[in-house]
């Protein structure tokens, strides 16, 4: 066994997620995997380590190269972050654990409504389900519809209508429905 692929990682995340383990470390040759649950992650806040807003945090580095990023799951369901010691991301506003960031999958112009003057897709405080459209990101007349991907409540809209949003910029903070999380974990 020399390496871990995408499916293996998902399985590890699930097993650790269901267990009582707070921290999990795995080293296979040059590959290092470090998982920490949110209860344990709280302790790291004081030390200045960036902690993502998910119940499970996975950090996967290969060949001990900190910038090697591996996205193991799409959108909002579980984030994989590189080990960014020394240069923490300062852009993201600090948020209470339990909120999920919906991030821009591409750079473009952010639109909250299907057309000018129309009511917005969503407003703060509104409940959404996976298939609900949250916004549109336009790149050169190509309109990309961004769906919620999760069930929950929109807590904050972080981008302005008609403005440029960058790749990976947080657009929405969503408070997830706990039942939804359970269902996801069982899937």
């Amino acid at each position, binding site marked *: 066994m020399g390496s871990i692929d995408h499916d293996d990682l998902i399985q590890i995340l699930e097993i650790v997620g269901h267990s009582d383990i707070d921290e999990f470390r795995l080293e296979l040759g040059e590959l290092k995997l470090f998982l920490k649950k949110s209860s344990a992650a709280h302790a790291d806040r004081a030390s200045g380590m960036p902690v993502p807003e998910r119940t499970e945090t996975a950090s996967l580095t290969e060949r001990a190269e900190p910038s090697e990023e591996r996205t193991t799951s799409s959108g909002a369901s579980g984030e994989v972050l590189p080990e960014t010691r020394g240069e923490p991301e300062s852009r993201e506003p600090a948020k209470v654990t339990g909120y999920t960031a919906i991030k821009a999958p591409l750079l473009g112009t952010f639109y909250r409504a299907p057309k000018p003057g129309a009511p917005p897709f969503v407003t703060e405080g509104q409940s959404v389900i996976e298939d609900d459209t949250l916004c549109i990101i336009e790149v050169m007349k190509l309109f990309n519809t961004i769906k919620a991907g999760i069930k929950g409540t929109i807590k904050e809209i972080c981008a302005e209508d008609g403005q440029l949003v960058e*790749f990976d910029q947080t657009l929405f903070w969503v408070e997830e429905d706990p039942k939804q999380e359970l269902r996801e974990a069982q899937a």
Partner: protein
Amino acid sequence: MGSISRVFVANRGEIALRIIRACREMGIESVLGVSNVDKNSLPAKMADRVVCIGPHPPLQSYLKVGTLITAALGTGADAIHPGYGFLAEQPELGEACMHNGLIFIGPKPENIRQMGDKLVAREMVRDLGVPVIPGSELVHDAKEAGAMAEKVGFPVLLKAAAGGGGKGMKMVRNPSELKSVFEEASAEARAAFGDDRIYIEHLIANARHIEVQILADRYGNVIHLFERDCSLQRRYQKMVEEAPSPAVTSDMREKITQAAVAIAQHVNYENAGTIEMVLDQDQGKFYFLEMNTRIQVEHPVTEMITGKDLVKEQIRIASGNPISFTQEEISIKGHAVECRINAEKPDANFMPHPGRILSWTPPEGHGIRIDSHCYSGYFVPPYYDSLLAKLITTGVNRSKAIHRMEDALANFDVKGVETTIPFYRKVMNHPDYLNGRIHTRWVEEVFLNR
């Protein structure tokens, strides 16, 4: 077209930094588009504004025309500088700029298109009376290639019409290997460039790579900034460049620079460009190779001997200004040598060696210039080219410049990643190099075949 007040830099690494610095000196704001792994790079720290254009694969960030245009418009830029590589020689970026009211800091799309097709460029140049290498014609199949190869004489080079910059070339030494190499070459050309047209050239054994830097504005002014010698290559990739060339006589210089100016004038060229030539050292003849429609990696050696800033000149020309000096106002002052310091293991067939630079201590002093985006602690990502720095030294003459290079290389300390510095130290001490007795396959013959 009006003046430029904010430039969107559509590149990364040392050339992004080079463009940002030029903008600063001109009082122009810079916006840098970065992939997510370049967010903390030195150019990102230097730019007035940074936007993340996508994830690290170039196809999802640095090569996305629509994204770059959207980012430039969304950040209020009025021009885009493409640097070299990535989209620099894709006419689509210039066209998209035109359609969106942005200035492309580079040649017109039709210039890029004309010169991008190496076969079209060759025919046009030949019609101007500039010599091209014997054999250069389109061949449709292995049989036709065989007949052409016999005519021009083995060994020959099979070249992709859509190639260039040393890519898409294959050597054939004798008729028996022609069929298989032809099929390989056209399959590779199709995969790499989406165009499987192949042409044949006689391989010049004792060749030097000489190129002429030109500048052209929209008022019909075309001037040359003399030649660079880029003969020290490994697998057609340049490693050491210098200006002027030790192999070019003043008579030859007159001929090649006039040919370069004539080519640029003929196509109504605009902005900076380079006419690449092959010098057959046995015959004392030069031939047109290709034209590069961008700023080149090795432009600093020209800047060092002429005292002119080529990137600033590019921006001035793109703003609609005439070239800020005349042919008569420039001359060759001294000599300049450049080594491309790459994150590669010279002893392991120059295998790329990305990773964390633990310490970065470049040489300093009179006559030393370093164009680099590296610093202690910088992580060299494995997704892009391995160029760490361009080390340029100058001197009143060639031997003084080389001597200074030797010293600079000895005092260039990099820890954490392996670099090509030890290799260049050997080159700078080699009698062949010191005496100017090299050719384009010298590195392979002297260093790699043992």
